[in-house]
């Protein structure tokens, strides 16, 4: 699982059956300094997150387990909101990283 910031939304009405109604959002993964880590990616949102939110997400086959239909081709899913992320005494959430 990784720390990330929601940076945008994606609309795709024609998707694999079972993904209807699943929200898709752009994520920028973050490192322990709160800086961008790697390239942004699109993830399914299993929580009511939106642009600007700090979240954590799971990648790989487990990502599909958060969807209403679990046999779907999904390789990244937002798992939860992050209220505080302490990194060596700093709180990345409070810093607005």
């Amino acid at each position, binding site marked *: 699982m990784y*720390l990330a910031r929601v940076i945008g939304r994606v609309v795709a009405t024609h998707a694999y059956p079972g993904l209807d109604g699943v929200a898709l959002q752009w994520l920028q993964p973050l490192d322990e300094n709160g800086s961008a880590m790697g390239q942004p990616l699109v993830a399914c949102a299993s929580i009511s997150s939106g642009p600007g939110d700090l979240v954590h997400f799971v990648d790989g086959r487990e990502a599909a387990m958060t969807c209403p239909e679990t046999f779907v081709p999904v390789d990244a899913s937002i798992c939860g909101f992050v209220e505080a992320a302490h990194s060596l005494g700093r709180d990345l959430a409070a810093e607005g990283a």
Partner: protein
Amino acid sequence: MFLADVLGTVVSPVQIPWLDGGTLLLLRPVLPDGTPTGKTRIALDRAQAGVGDRVLVLDEGNGGRQILGDASAAVKTIIVAVVDYVEQHGQLAYDHQHPTPLAPLK
């Protein structure tokens, strides 16, 4: 599995049900000598680890689901052990009793 240093805790008020009641920790993967390597991760703690500990992390799909005993769990990264010491080429590369300070943030 890989080695990582625990940097701190992650607080998540709303999350997928499999994580409820568990502790999430922020991890920095490290080489045996403590040099940071790879991507910063968040893991579910199953070994009562704390900040500053060096831990053993499982980040492979089915293994995580087996540990939780739930084939439908959307959990992949799990701390499975707190490391006491690491031996490399006959030398002590890490000793929990005499840990080297964590490399500071940038």
